[in-house]
């Protein structure tokens, strides 16, 4: 393959869109230039992700937070007492039934 291989510049696109990748698969098997480019991209990706932290909460923090979230979300339930029916209404209902 010569150096003007057009697929080298399209490799990033191919990584993002797997469908395109499958179309390029055959070319990749044959082209050493593209294979080197894939290696280079993969190495860069790995080293880039190694410099971005990925902090996670400790169990202690998690359980305290879950408790707080429980209280916050349950505060949405507003207690509504059932309406009391008046004596007059109850008598009316009784009369209706009888």
């Amino acid at each position, binding site marked *: 393959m010569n150096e003007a291989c057009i697929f080298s510049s399209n490799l990033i696109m191919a990584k993002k869109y797997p469908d395109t990748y499958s179309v390029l698969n055959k070319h990749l098997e044959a082209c050493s230039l593209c294979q080197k480019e894939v290696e280079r991209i993969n190495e860069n990706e790995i*080293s*880039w*992700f*190694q*410099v*971005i*932290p*990925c*902090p*996670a*909460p*400790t169990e202690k*923090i*998690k359980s*305290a*937070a*879950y408790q*707080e*979230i*429980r209280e*916050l*979300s*349950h*505060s*949405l*339930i*507003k*207690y*509504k007492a059932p309406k009391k029916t008046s004596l007059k209404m109850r008598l009316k209902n009784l009369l209706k039934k009888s």
Partner: protein
Amino acid sequence: MISPKRPDKILLVEVSSLEKFLNNQFNSLYGFSYVLIPDELQASQVCLDSISSLLLEYKDLIKDFLENKDVSQEIKIHLHRFVYNLCKKRNVQLPALNVEQNNYMPFYELDIEKRSIIYLRDRSQFLLSEIEAIVDKRNYEIINSYELAKNLVQNKGVLYS
């Protein structure tokens, strides 16, 4: 407060689903919050403050969630926006915090906006349009900040290694 129109038992089940959803969000919110304010307690408090702000300010959205409408991504964006804004304010008030993780020094030396953009894009996998809503910047400003930050981190990473 959302006044229940349906029986309390049903509402309790729905609120439990909201609780479960918020619990799931906590981990991702905590990660985002910690990279902006590298202190366990502060980061945790910011997440809880964001959740309570959401429950107070977006009652309609919460109501939609309780009615099983698909608003989870919208809630996620609002939560991250609250975290970003709170961290930006608190970062000014807090004394400089010691970051012990030397491997990540180049990252922590970036300003809060660049750290947010990198984390939201590459760790939380938000779309560009969603990052726009979280950090309140235009898409070209975000792309510019991202590329600049990536260069800075990679160049400094070479110096630290």
